């Protein structure tokens, strides 16, 4: 034991507080981002021992090269119809987002969140998963619903909390839920869905089912204890689950260094638990598809969980309540070197001779029409802030399966109050 006198001569400690490369007024500089060439990462068999692929989390799985060609062992070799469908779904997410964002600005609802630039994360995964695998998303995976053909009007009614909202106006906009589409109810509490997904997958395994679960979490939210709980349980019981980390590099105003991103990758978390970790170009729809499929196949073969980091960029603000120019250089998103997933898939399809500018414009026009029509349709059922679409009585339903006496009483009081207000 060194005596305390000795210690006193030692240099002073200091606290390291991570800071992003650039703040407002400075030039954003992505030149430090290491981008391995597309096709350069080997694709192991799905029954590889996790210990043999401990280096995978430190590279970046990419399929589409700068010319839009699909290269290397991770190329999922999708047919053109599937590719076009993925393109359509991503474009639809973008058109839909744009419109709902505007609806919020027009005062038609309280809140909205876009996924601009991150559309591949949800859309490509939806295509790689089975239709009845269960998804446990965050608020930025609306692409799952769109890829699974959930009606736009349903989504909009939820955003408006209107009379058509099957969630009875109870949830914040974009907190969708649809059991039938395998889309688990979104929670406001970050991270909670992650262990729930693992539990769902454990249930599927206990019952000898063949459906797997997939979950998404943001880079920021990986810091929650729920993340650790989820990966621990997934590893211990070899749960059939695909655990995605969407590293869009921002969590509201905090860059990913505040979540631990300075020291290593988010995919590397997997190594700590002894499960495979893949790091994927999240703006490359084919890479996302391929990695998801690899992980899903492992899960379905009783080989256990996989953690996938989807490296992407949050191009716009966190939500309608946020203005990113207060904490990062303006226009940073446009400079993100991994490009735009929609444009990359479009270029790929054009390169294949399966798409062209004209058809693309037609697609966008058509999607615009669809969205407009759906909006018209859903607004018939009201928007937020008008006369409340839900009855006072409905507020007391679903706390429990049956209404206990105290909620019955409270319902009566609420009705009396409503009556008094009318007078």
């Amino acid at each position, binding site marked *: 034991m060194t005596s305390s006198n000795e210690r006193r001569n030692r240099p002073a400690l200091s606290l390291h507080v991570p800071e992003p490369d650039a703040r407002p007024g400075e030039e954003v500089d992505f030149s430090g981002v290491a981008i391995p060439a597309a096709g350069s990462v080997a694709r192991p068999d799905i029954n590889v021992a996790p210990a043999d692929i401990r280096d995978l989390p430190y590279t970046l799985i990419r399929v589409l090269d700068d010319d839009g060609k699909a290269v290397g062992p991770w190329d999922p070799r999708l047919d053109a119809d599937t590719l076009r469908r993925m393109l359509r779904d991503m474009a639809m997410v973008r058109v839909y987002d744009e419109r709902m964002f505007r609806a919020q600005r027009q005062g038609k609802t309280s809140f909205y969140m876009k996924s601009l630039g991150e559309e591949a994360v949800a859309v490509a995964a939806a295509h790689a998963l089975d239709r009845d695998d*269960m998804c*446990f998303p965050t608020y930025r995976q609306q692409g799952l619903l769109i890829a699974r053909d959930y009606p736009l009007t349903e989504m909009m009614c939820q955003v408006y909390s209107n009379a058509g909202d*099957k*969630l*009875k106006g*109870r*949830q914040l906009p974009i*907190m969708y*839920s*649809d*059991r039938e589409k395998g889309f*688990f*109810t979104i*929670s*406001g*509490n970050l991270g*909670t869905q*992650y*262990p*729930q*997904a*693992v*539990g*769902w*997958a*454990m*249930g*599927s*395994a*206990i*019952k000898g089912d063949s459906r797997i*679960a997939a979950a998404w979490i943001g880079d920021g939210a990986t810091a929650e*204890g*729920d993340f*650790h*709980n*989820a990966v*621990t*349980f997934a590893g*211990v019981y070899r749960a059939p689950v695909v655990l995605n980390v969407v590293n869009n590099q921002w969590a509201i105003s905090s860059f990913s260094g505040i979540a631990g991103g300075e020291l290593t990758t988010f995919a590397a978390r997997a190594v700590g638990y002894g499960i495979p970790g893949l790091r994927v170009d999240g703006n490359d729809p084919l890479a996302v598809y391929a990695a998801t499929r690899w992980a899903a196949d492992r899960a379905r073969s009783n080989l256990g969980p996989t953690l996938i980091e989807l490296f992407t960029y949050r191009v716009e603000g966190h939500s309608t309540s946020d203005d990113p120019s207060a904490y990062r250089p303006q226009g940073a998103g446009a400079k993100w070197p991994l490009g735009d997933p929609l444009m990359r898939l479009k270029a790929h399809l054009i390169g294949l001779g399966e798409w062209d500018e004209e058809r693309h414009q037609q697609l966008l026009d058509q999607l615009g029409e669809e969205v407009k029509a759906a909006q018209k349709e859903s607004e018939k059922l009201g928007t937020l802030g008008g006369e409340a679409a839900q009855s006072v009585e409905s507020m007391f*339903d*679903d*706390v*429990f*399966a049956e209404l*206990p*006496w*105290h909620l019955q009483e409270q319902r009566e009081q609420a009705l009396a109050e409503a009556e008094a207000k009318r007078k």
Partner: protein
Amino acid sequence: MTVMNMIEALNSAHDVMMGRDPDIVVMGEDVGYFGGVFRVTAGLQKKYGKTRAFDTPIAEGGIAGTAIGMAAYGLKPVVEMQFADYIYPAFDQIVSEAGRMRYRTAGEWTLPMVFRSPYGGGIFGGQTHSQSPEALFAHVCGIKTVIPSNPYDAKGLLIAAIEDPDPVIFFEPKRIYNGPFDGFHERPVTPWAKHPAAEVPEGYYTVPLGKAAVAREGNDVTILAYGTMVHVALATAEEQGIDAEVIDLRTIVPVDIDTIEASVKKTGRCVIIHEATRTGGFGAELAALVQERCFYHLEAPVQRVTGYDTPYPHSLEWTYFPGPTRLGIALKKALED
């Protein structure tokens, strides 16, 4: 009928239900091979297999979170939290998720599940093996909270809780897990064999949630109690020869307001007893309800006899514990006022 202590009765409830319903899974720290630190799940893994009764990592939040996922899948998890004092890491999952799932999805996702936990003081467990956090769960909406006071009820209520379509918190007073407890810790106890409530049917039966029991009829004062405190109440009434009506609430959410109201309107006096800290304890809710509903029948203020607003100390355990002396003082006051 067999004489069972509380642990045996709870074990039997698990066994009966796991036999009837293949969707029931039992999980928690040390509940598998070993059968739980209090042995409530003993033998279940052997009988029903490792995927229906298994140990979990020491992560209460993970236990709750994965159990919620299993319930969402379609199973009926019966979860053991090793001590009620260690339920807090799971608080977010229980309160924000389990308690609100049906509501936030307008009934699309529902969670039939039970969180069981040993609870309360009286075994020299110190401040982290003695807590009674029921009021925390009573306040947040969407969760039922059940606390049995004897083996018969324990089994019947646990079966009802497992069958309930919504999440139930089930607190098991560990002071009365094994032996009976006749209110006075320093005196010998009557063995279970002589307690009618220790006669427990071996098969299936239920005791409905939300229904209190009149543990003792009386006319002069109503004592509202649950768990271990029921025995304190009975002992005190006996000892002091007071014509007290003792209501064993059994479920605190939803509480059986009819039984409470009828009794207090009859007696005109009410004393509430619980082991938890006083401020904001469930006794506050009971006192508020009683005076709201029985105001014109009350002849004295509703009193609360509770644990103190301090952690449960190790050496002064029996000074902290709300025993017959403390209750006796309150009863005397209630009757004199």
